[in-house]
């Protein structure tokens, strides 16, 4: 084979090689990404970029669910209370944390009870040294929390940043002394923090 024809062959092969490489890339990527298996679940997140935990108001941090922070019984009008839940964010990209709710009751008691939620960056377990001027996140009836069901209507905008960061949410509830309804009822709420990369 002459040098000329070898060069011609090489030049003819080069586009084919490029196209083959493109095809191979696509085929392999597609195979890996779109295979029907779901074996990925749960274990690959360690390499993931955002993670949230909460301390369930003074307990130990847990990823999924912490036990109820509030189980208040025998409430009378005029009673009130507050607890702080510390949320831990571990992220390596910019992100935003919002507070959402679920299972918020809609009975007369929930309409009579008030809930004020304040946020302060930092770790203030059991509200110790909670700043005097926190950021107010919510201040209305407990039943009104039902409107914060998802990311788009979630409460607050905590830009946790990268690394391990803490934010403390103080929940102050009250059944005002003038309450005239709600006897024999129970108000409920789940608090959910959601973090999304920004």
């Amino acid at each position: 084979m002459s040098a000329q024809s070898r060069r011609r062959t090489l030049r003819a092969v080069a586009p084919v090689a490029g196209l083959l490489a493109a095809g191979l890339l696509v085929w392999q990527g597609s195979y890996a990404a779109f295979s029907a298996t779901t074996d990925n679940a749960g274990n690959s997140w360690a390499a993931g970029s955002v993670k949230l935990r909460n301390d369930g108001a003074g307990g130990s941090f847990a990823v999924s669910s912490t036990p109820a922070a509030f189980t208040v019984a025998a409430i009378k009008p005029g009673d009130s209370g507050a607890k702080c839940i510390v949320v831990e964010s571990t992220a390596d990209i910019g992100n935003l944390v919002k507070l959402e709710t679920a299972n918020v009751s809609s009975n007369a008691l929930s309409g009579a009870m008030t809930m004020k939620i304040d946020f302060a960056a930092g770790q203030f377990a059991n509200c110790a040294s909670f700043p005097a001027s926190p950021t107010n996140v919510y201040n209305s009836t407990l039943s009104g929390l039902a409107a914060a069901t998802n990311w788009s209507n979630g409460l607050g905008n905590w830009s946790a940043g990268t690394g391990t960061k803490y934010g403390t949410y103080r929940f102050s509830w009250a059944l005002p002394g003038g309450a005239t309804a709600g006897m024999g009822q129970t108000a409920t709420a789940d608090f959910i923090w959601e973090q999304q990369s920004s």
Partner: protein
Amino acid sequence: MDIDTDPATCSDSAQQAAYSRVRLAGGLVGRMWLWFLAGCLVITLVPVLFGWRPYLIESGSMEPRIHVGDVVIASPEQDPQALLGRVAVFTDPDRPDRNKTHRVIEAADDGRLVTKGDANPTPDSQHVAVSDVHGLGRLLVGFVGLPVVWLQSGQWLWLVLFLVSIALSVRWVSRDHEDEQDDAPGDPPTDRMLSAQAAPTRSGLDIAASRPIPLARASHRHRWAWRIGYAVALAAALLLPTSTAAFSATTRSTGNSWSVPNYDYTNEVKALGPYLYWKLDETGTGTTAATDSSGNGRPGEYNGSITKGITGALVTDTPNNAVSLTSANSCINTASSVAATTAPAAFTVAAWFKAPVGYSKGGKLIGFERPRTGVAAPSVGQYDRMLYLDGNARLRFGVYNGGYQLISTAGGWDDNAWHLAVGTMNSAGMALYVDGVRVGTNSNNAAESNTSGWWRAGCGNLAGWASGWSGPNAPPADATPTNYTFQGGLDEAAVWTKALTASEVAFLYFTR
């Protein structure tokens, strides 16, 4: 820009051969790179012809399988069974103006799809309606959208390096292209040689100047074709629909609850330690005693015409009975077995009352009085520490302290509904509450003292209490003792020898 080689260099000198091999290698690398990119672009864009759509991935929650800058090509698919376990592109329920590419992990009970990013610890909080699914991921073109990502995120260094790689490749290919012309079989050695030979016959132009012209033109056209092609492809790429694969995580505090028990009004009254507590639950015309539920043994007695067993004020109470005083001499007096007591300095009087619509007779709900039954002028008798209605059914709370100390509501209560009236007095002054709400205060903190008497409900002397009276039936002067029976419903009469606080009163009403 091409190196204008001398015809003499066509000879196979060793140096020239090495140089030619370098140009060949550059040309091959350039060709492969450009064809690779072109292939990726074609694979990205051609499926559009079949109705599949490409989506540029902008964030990395599907790592390690799908990266930022990858392009997912999705075919239309809205069958939940086909989507299960697969990667789908859908409208982000959290941000409806964006698409999201995540894996469908299950179908929720409501038929919506539960989705999750492979790199996320928890499923997405919002489920996806099947109708919001744009497609099922079919092809993944790795990294092809990176230049767009770099452009959007301002990673100029990478973008410039990428563009330089294309420019270099184009340059290498076009240089090598010259050699390719030389190598073409059956052709004259080179265009250049040909022009060099033909030039004298073709034109009188200077050979050196004219020789490269056809080549330069060809390579210009070539380069411009590449440039335009890439510009078009890049523009097309910029129009790619984007899809985030947002990182997300959640944590929850569940099962929070606040409970208010079913408080019992009777128990709460008792817990506040009343001096006497007539629930007025008795029934039967023959019954004359009104039980004292305070535990202090201070019963009342039903006098005059009284209907017992009407429906009372406490819906949760069993029995929920009350009485209705039906004539001008009806009354519930302290029983004769109970000794007179010194009028307390601090006290609370409370009773539920129900006045018929248009009620204008006035009347006493509860008060302290001597004698035990009937009425007497102040020269003999004494009466204050009382709740009563005036001719417009306004509620009043009054004590006598050398003068008539009063608190009155602004409007009447003749609405045929049960209301809780509470009057309190101690050293801090007087307060009147209706239905648990304080409606007025008076700084007077003393009442008629050093007198003894009995509590009574539903009737009593009001002579002399014309001050501030509104409506008909105003009381006469105090020399003319006149009994005012409240001719309406009465329930849960109670007396404390202390002033209840506002929150205690509010709570009592709350537990009704």
